[in-house]
């Protein structure tokens, strides 16, 4: 239970920020925190708390998987650092690129049957898979 104590401030912050389906488990010396964040800002805030407790995320004793979720059919924003987001034929970077979405562009989420690759449609009508970590719900 020592890890739960170490990261208690993170769990408290997740609760306070309204993270849904929050699950905290400790297994083989690693703490796993999962949940659904209401938006990308909450996710980033939790990662900042994580970095305060464990500078540079260096200890390897936490797997934080609290992501901003979006409903199928809703609008999502492209949150790449600066580059365009590739839209691919299938879920994987080995898949051919079928389109691109600019940083901050708003595109439509078709479904998120795959955790890491969401199926999306750009406003030009291009459909394909985009890396979910570069998308966040428009709130």
């Amino acid at each position, binding site marked *: 239970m020592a890890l739960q104590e170490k990261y208690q401030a993170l769990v408290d912050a997740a609760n306070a920020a309204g993270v849904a389906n929050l699950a905290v*488990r400790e*297994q083989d010396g690693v703490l796993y925190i999962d949940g659904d964040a209401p938006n990308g800002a909450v996710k980033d805030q939790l990662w900042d708390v994580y970095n305060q407790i464990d500078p540079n995320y260096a200890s*390897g004793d936490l797997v934080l998987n609290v992501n901003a979720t979006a409903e199928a059919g809703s609008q999502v924003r492209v949150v790449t650092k600066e580059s365009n987001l590739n839209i691919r034929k299938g879920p994987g970077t080995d898949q051919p690129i079928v389109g691109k979405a600019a940083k901050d562009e708003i595109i439509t989420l078709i479904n998120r049957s795959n955790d890491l690759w969401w199926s999306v449609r750009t406003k030009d009508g291009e459909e394909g898979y985009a890396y979910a970590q570069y998308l966040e719900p428009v709130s």
Partner: protein
Amino acid sequence: MKRILAIVAIVAFSFALPSCKGKSDAELKTAAEAAIQANPDLSGVIIEVKDGVATISGEVKDPAAQAAAETAVKEVKGIKSISNETTVAPPPPPVNITPDDPLTTAVKDAIKDHPTVSATVTDGVVTLTGEISKADLKTLMQKVQATKPKKVESGGLTVK
């Protein structure tokens, strides 16, 4: 003499009476609630008292907390007995760890935009090496941890 004794007995009895009477159920409930409040693990426990018999219910995290609730209430003076109807919360869902093959693919995707970082996957453990700027570290770690690994070893990663 008998009369005097009887009066003494009555007087003695009437003095003894208040201490025999004890606390009301409502007072016992308040005292029992105060007793469990001291333990944060027992925040979900509900107490009812009827004729000095306490019934405790609600959900707690484990059997130890069930026992602790019972012990705490038992220590309240005036509680005759306890019916422990608390339940233990179901265990959280098991940790979902991605098997090595899909994990290797997912990690490759996760580090694609960070060409100075390399990763290996062994038994669910992702080991990151190379170097990364402080500004990109959070994004990298968010992407790598989202692949649902068993663990992320980043001790070999130089943060610049």
